[in-house]
Structure formats: structure tokens, C-alpha cells
């Protein structure tokens, strides 16, 4: 019978399994590595639609549209209950105009222009980045776009998830 003895009595740490695990994690992370300068985290209140577009997001004023609220930046400007509850925010004489949203966008536009006055190198374009829930009806979307257009925003980036 053959017996093997470790005369020093030390336990040798087995690193092979750990390196295997780290290598797999490393490969996975390398695959998901992003070098994009501008990152947008989608809101957890909405489900974005899928798209084949490969165009990266650019800097702009962020609007989140769900079936219960509209927020500009971090501020909630409109909140309602029910599917058509947002219609209470419409202007009495114009069914394509949301005064609350228009005011908020105007303020954002002024802030951007003020920034540009301070630093000429900042090239501020009046761009809106819209995060809209995929089940939103076109009525709300066109009302928001019409209002934003009246506030001077004509360039819209509709945020989607890459397919």
C-alpha cells in the first residue's frame, strides 16, 4: 500500500477553479463593455419598445412618458389616473397644447441657453430624448411633440432598447 505524506503539514490553496470562474466572468463583462460617452438609464416605470436602430443616444432634455405621468428631467410635471386622465391638462382652446409641459420645457431651454452664454464651447441643441412606454397611444405622443415643438424643440430622439 502506497501512502503519500505532506511532511510540512500545509494546505495548498487550489486557485484553478477560482481562475476559471473569473475568466468566464471577465469574458462576459468584456462582451458587455460600453464605451459610449453618454449613457441613459431607462426608467423603471416604463417598458421601452424594441428597435433595430443602432444610433446612440445624445445629450438632450429628457422626458419620461408613462401611462400615468409625464416628467421633464427629474421633475414630474403631469400626473393623472386612468387612460385619458392627461386630457385635463390640455389648453381649453387648443387640444394639442399642454401649458404645464410647455412652461417646463421653456425653462429647460432657457437653462441650456444660459449655459451656452457662459461657455461658447458648449454646443446646446434643442433636442428632446423621449422615454415613452411602448403601450402609449399616439394621441398623447403627438400632443407632447406638438407642445415641445412650440417650445422650440424640433429634434426628437425616441429612446428604444436594442434588439
Amino acid at each position, binding site marked *: 500500500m502506497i501512502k503519500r505524506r505532506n511532511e510540512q503539514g500545509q494546505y495548498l490553496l487550489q486557485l484553478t477553479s477560482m*481562475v476559471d470562474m*473569473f475568466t468566464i466572468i471577465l469574458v462576459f463583462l468584456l462582451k458587455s463593455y460600453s464605451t459610449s460617452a453618454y449613457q441613459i438609464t431607462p426608467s423603471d416605470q416604463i417598458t421601452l419598445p424594441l*428597435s433595430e436602430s443602432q*444610433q446612440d443616444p445624445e445629450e438632450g432634455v429628457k422626458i419620461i412618458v408613462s401611462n400615468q405621468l409625464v416628467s421633464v428631467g427629474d421633475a414630474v410635471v403631469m400626473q393623472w389616473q386612468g387612460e385619458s386622465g392627461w386630457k385635463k391638462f390640455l389648453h381649453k382652446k387648443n387640444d394639442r397644447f399642454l401649458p404645464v409641459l410647455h412652461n417646463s420645457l421653456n425653462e429647460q431651454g432657457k437653462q441650456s441657453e444660459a449655459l451656452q452664454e457662459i461657455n461658447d464651447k458648449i454646443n446646446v441643441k434643442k433636442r428632446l430624448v423621449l422615454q415613452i412606454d411602448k403601450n402609449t397611444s*399616439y394621441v398623447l405622443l403627438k400632443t407632447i411633440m406638438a407642445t415641445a415643438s412650440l417650445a422650440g424643440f424640433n429634434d426628437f*430622439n425616441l429612446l*428604444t432598447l436594442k434588439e
Partner: protein
Amino acid sequence: MRRVRITKNPETEDLDLAPMLAMIVSLIPILLMSFTFYHTAVVDAKVPAPAAKATSKKKDEVKYKVYLQLNDDRQVMFLVKQKEKVVSKVTVTSKAGQFDLGKITSEARILRKKWSEVAKLQMIPSDGVSYDEIIQVIDKVKDQKKTSELYDEVIFSNIFKG
């Protein structure tokens, strides 16, 4: 009983994984910080400038305009207009109650080829069409790969009227 002596071959050594592990452990936190859970993209869309605020009255050199009408019954109509007069009309019927995206793409290619000077598509969705469906249709008619086989720009032309 015969004794068997096992001797270690002095030329074989265990592989030293410590430096490799050190490198991997350094890389993983860096990559974790730049890890993206969601890969987002944007669909560029334009709107017509409001008539009251149109700052430039550039002459519209394009004679023709191509419209894409999305109806509530998921039927699609391509309209080619020359100064509000309909020159061509193509209807794409729905497929299983949904927009027939394959047919929409093929018709868009045909129209783009026929009226190659028109690079913008005027979209007219109905109120009952959902945002998800609009995005799907835009994907199919917009030139993502810059091949000039489809349209460069999509404009929501009925946000003020219709």
C-alpha cells in the same frame, strides 16, 4: 513486500496562477463599473416646424412628398403627392391583424427607387396606433444602414393637424 519509492520529477512545477489572478481581479471591478444592463438606441424623428414659428421660408425644392398613413385597422397607405394632388397610392393590407412589416419595407423600397429625390417620409399615424407599432414601422422604412434604399428621415406630419 516490495517497497515502491515515489520521487517527484524536479523538472515539473505547478503553474503559478497568482499574477494572472491579480490581473483578472483588477480588471473585473473596472469592467463592472462600465457594465451596461440595458443597451439603448434612439430613433431620430422630426416634426414639421409650426407655421407661426417658421423662421426660414426656404423654397421647397422637392416637388413630390411621400406620405405613410397608418390606420387603426392596421392597414397602411403610401401616398405620393405633388402639391397636394395624389400622384400615386399604394395600399398594404394588414396581416393577421397587425401591420405587414415585410410588405411595408418592400413597398417603401419601390417608392424610394421610383422617386429617388424624396428622402423624407411623412408619417401620419392614426390615434389608435400604439407607440410600439409606430417604432416597428419606422424601423422598416428608415434607412438604418445608409444604403439609400429607404428613407433618411421620418417626419410626424400630423402632430398639429389630423
